[in-house]
């Protein structure tokens, strides 16, 4: 097959590729005078426009002769103007090799600028003349076209490298089009009207050509070609990344190769070559159709490490393929993006790899299976009853599945969108809760047997799960606000108190489920005891069979359930304890007059009640758990304030309480960490963190550091404030929220700092 084709001279100038028509200028009438004449006496507030025109759109327009908004004003150097892709840059073989290496090197590093550093496509990869040229020419023929400079390094090697990079970009474009990450915010794909190889179906072609170029360069037997060879190998790895989406490959071989190549290139700084002058420029923004303002190029730093990050993050995502339970999948989703925001390609890949084109989770489970497993792994009693299989449950379970899919997708979002995602999710969980309860109640009240009845009434496992998911989302939304620095110090009381309250609600729910599971386990044991007492041989056999059946089918999942619930309870207790500690430290600080839960802002326009209610707005429509009122917060804080008489001993009591809660938290953290390390088959708890062990341990380490920091803060507060109130104290200090190194961003310290009396607005 003839891989190279002839092509004629192609000029970008004067092209009619957009289907543009040349006007016959003689048919135009000059109405300049008429216009300016008619416009002479217009009143200042006049806007003449189409009645259907939305003037808001006008705010996004470009503007002629405005250097910030007119890409035609971009000035290019003479090298940039004169640059031609028809001629091989470089006078000697050595120079040409240097230039080609420089071009490919810049393109590779520009990929990192684009994806890791959130730059735009036109200011990175598309700023290269060769990329623009080759994509333009190839799309006209709908097949890969090649340069004709006469030099094989340009005509073959450079082109193969560029097509490899563009093929990888095509994969990234596919991720963006799937709508799982946000355009502009997470990823820019301003293709400037260029077609990124939509006509190339198969990576094989691209890879074959890259390999032939690698072979060719190797055959040159020159030490200076090493760097370029490795660049091409890196590009091969990039080309194969699409397999993780195309065929849902979980094979990490190419990712490991990518890491290896990137590390090698990172260490070869001395091999750095420059691309030919004029090769990279803002010219494309001036030449091609462009609805965006001009943007300067960034010079790519020596950032090959960026590929390592991308590869490692994708590997972290692919671990979900090994999930042996829904719990493990959910824990991976929870932890993989929690401590550090992952590479955009990995984050976009996660929901697409997890919930596949055919709507099957990991290609293994239907949506219904998925929900079934989530429910069962939370509370095994759901399998014992016929609840899930009842036809009335189908639409409810469908909705549950939809929300779970959204939950999984939310886990991969950027750090700010993650919190916003819960804002929307809360309404969904709440609606589902109501639906689920009424449905389950119907079914359960028709069922016979004591399995459904607990002390407090009919036990509804599915509703309990929904409630648990809802409250967990609420806690996460509240505490994430600290991470994102959304709260001022005065708001810390309300947020931590609310988090404490929600944790308490969560705990009640979990305890109930735990109790039910435990009673089921006990009833199987007591069945075993009954067998011994049974004299009647036939009945004994029956009981034995029953016992056997229950032991074989239910006991293990019940035990696993119980240990998982224990983990949830223990984790919840940490959040509860730390939230309470923060609340108590706040109350001490307020008692000494250095902080208030009321804003110090002027109250001309608003008031404390409105501010609190606005803050709690996302929860305002949720019935259960009941929203705390302004009065409830006030009275809670007042109850905690330390007042005369006996301030010293009351203070001591509060400090002791804080120490106790810290100690409880540390014990719980310790236990959880041990169980994470030991794995789910041994030990007290089931954490489901096998696939995210490192991240989970780090997360609990951070909580440990926070607990320690809170304890230390006790001492600092006492040292600075003393043990008796004085009026001068409140002027001396102020409180700010600060996060110690390596501590959890969800529990900033209420740090006492010296007050600067004159706060000037900078």
């Amino acid at each position, binding site marked *: 097959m003839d891989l190279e084709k002839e092509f004629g001279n192609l000029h970008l100038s004067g092209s009619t590729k957009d289907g543009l028509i040349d006007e016959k200028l003689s048919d135009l009438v000059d109405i300049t005078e008429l216009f300016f004449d008619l416009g002479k006496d217009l*009143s*200042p*507030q006049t*806007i003449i426009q189409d009645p259907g025109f939305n*003037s*808001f759109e*006008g*705010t996004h*327009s*470009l*503007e002629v002769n*405005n250097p*910030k*908004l007119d890409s035609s004003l971009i000035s290019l150097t003479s090298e940039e103007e004169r640059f031609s892709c028809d001629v091989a840059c470089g006078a000697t073989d050595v120079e040409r090799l240097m230039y080609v290496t420089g071009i490919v090197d810049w393109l590779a590093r520009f990929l990192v600028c684009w994806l890791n550093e*959130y*730059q735009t496509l036109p200011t990175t990869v598309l700023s290269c003349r060769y990329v623009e040229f080759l994509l333009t020419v190839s799309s006209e023929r709908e097949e890969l076209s090649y340069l004709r400079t006469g030099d094989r390094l340009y005509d073959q090697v450079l082109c193969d490298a560029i097509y490899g990079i563009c093929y990888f970009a095509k994969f990234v474009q596919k991720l963006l089009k799937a709508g799982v990450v946000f355009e*502009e*915010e*997470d990823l820019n794909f301003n293709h400037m009207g260029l077609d990124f190889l939509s006509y190339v179906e198969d990576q094989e072609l691209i890879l074959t050509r890259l390999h032939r170029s690698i072979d060719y360069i190797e055959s040159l037997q020159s030490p200076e070609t090493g760097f370029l060879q490795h660049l091409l190998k890196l590009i091969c790895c990039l080309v194969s990344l699409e397999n993780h989406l195309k065929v849902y490959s979980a094979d990490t071989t190419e990712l490991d190769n990518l890491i290896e190549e990137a590390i090698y290139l990172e260490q070869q700084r001395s091999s750095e070559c420059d691309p030919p002058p004029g090769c990279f420029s803002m010219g494309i923004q001036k030449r091609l159709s462009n609805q965006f*303002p001009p943007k300067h190029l960034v010079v790519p730093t020596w950032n090959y490490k960026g590929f390592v990050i991308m590869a490692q993050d994708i590997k972290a995502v692919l671990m979900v393929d090994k999930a042996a339970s829904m719990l493990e999948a959910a824990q991976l989703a929870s932890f993989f993006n929690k401590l550090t925001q992952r590479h955009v390609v990995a984050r976009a890949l996660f929901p697409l790899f997890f919930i596949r084109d055919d709507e099957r989770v990991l290609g293994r489970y239907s949506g219904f299976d998925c929900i079934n497993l989530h429910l069962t792994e939370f509370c095994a009693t759901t399998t014992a009853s016929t609840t899930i299989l009842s036809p009335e449950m189908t639409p409810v379970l469908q909705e549950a599945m939809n929300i779970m899919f959204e939950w999984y997708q939310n886990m991969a979002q*950027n*750090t*700010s*969108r993650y*919190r*916003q995602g819960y804002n929307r999710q809360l*309404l969904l969980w709440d609606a589902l809760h109501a639906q689920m309860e009424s449905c389950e109640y119907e079914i359960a009240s028709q069922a016979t047997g004591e399995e459904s009845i607990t002390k407090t009434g009919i036990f509804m496992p599915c509703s309990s799960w929904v409630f648990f998911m809802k409250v967990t989302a609420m806690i996460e939304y509240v505490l994430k606000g600290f991470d*994102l*620095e*959304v*709260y*001022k110090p005065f*708001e810390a009381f309300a947020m931590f108190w609310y988090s404490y309250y929600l944790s308490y609600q969560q705990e009640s729910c979990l305890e109930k489920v735990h109790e039910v599971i435990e009673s089921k386990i006990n009833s199987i044991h007591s069945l075993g005891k009954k067998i011994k007492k049974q004299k009647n041989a036939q009945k004994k056999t029956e009981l034995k069979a029953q016992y056997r059946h229950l032991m074989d089918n239910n006991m293990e999942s019940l035990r696993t359930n119980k240990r998982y619930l224990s983990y949830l309870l223990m984790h919840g207790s940490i959040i509860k304890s730390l939230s309470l500690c923060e609340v108590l430290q706040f109350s001490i600080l307020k008692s000494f007059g250095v902080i208030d839960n009321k*804003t*110090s*802002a*002027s*109250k*001309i*326009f*608003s008031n404390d009640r*409105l*501010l609190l*209610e*606005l*803050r*709690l*707005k*996302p929860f*305002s*429509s949720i019935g259960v758990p009941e929203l705390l009122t302004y009065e409830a917060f006030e009275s809670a804080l007042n109850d905690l304030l330390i007042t005369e008489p006996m301030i010293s001993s009351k203070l001591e009591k509060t400090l002791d309480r804080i120490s106790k809660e810290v100690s409880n938290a540390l014990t719980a953290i310790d236990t959880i960490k041990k169980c994470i390390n030991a794995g789910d088959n041994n030990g007290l708890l089931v954490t489901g963190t096998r696939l995210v062990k490192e991240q989970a341990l780090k997360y609990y380490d951070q909580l440990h550091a926070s607990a320690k920091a809170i304890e230390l803060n006790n001492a600092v507060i006492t040292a600075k404030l003393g043990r008796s109130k004085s009026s001068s104290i409140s002027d001396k200090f102020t409180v700010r929220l600060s996060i110690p190194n390596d501590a959890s961003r969800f529990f900033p310290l209420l740090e006492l700092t010296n007050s600067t009396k004159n*706060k*000037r*607005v*900078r």
Partner: protein
Amino acid sequence: MIIYQPLINNLSHFQSLKRLIDADLSEPYSVYVYRYFLNRWPELTFLAFDSESETSDEPIGCVICKSELHRGRRMRGYIGMLAVQSDYRGRGIAKSLVKKAIEKMHQDGCDEIMLETEVENVAALNLYENMGFIRMKRMFRYYLNEGDAFKLILPLTQRSCVRTTFLDDVNGIDIL
């Protein structure tokens, strides 16, 4: 002495307002951005003048706002631009301008006031938070390479505190 005035209907200071804002911000604004705000909501633009300067008819500071029905349920005032000439800074002029604007929007029936500002803009955050604004959300890379932004809201009425989906139609009966 600093004098504050709303923009009057003849938009007489259109050009100087444009110059004032263009000089201050790195964000590029076309003339139609100014037309959008100033032509539609002239009463929500306030200017500051130095009566004692030689150019006392040239504004040395301004705030440009709008107000609209938000999602069909809530009147929301929006602070679009705020600028004070550099030699006039540190005198509380920005604060006075914002105050006047909010007073007007409040008078006109706004349930809340909203604006976005960069996370790093400590001066703006201090200014608005000292008036009672709180941070409702953080937006990732809102200003492209300039970084994250906070959405700030000042609640003026109860309606600001209820989720839009649960607010009655403006013309219907308020559920609260």
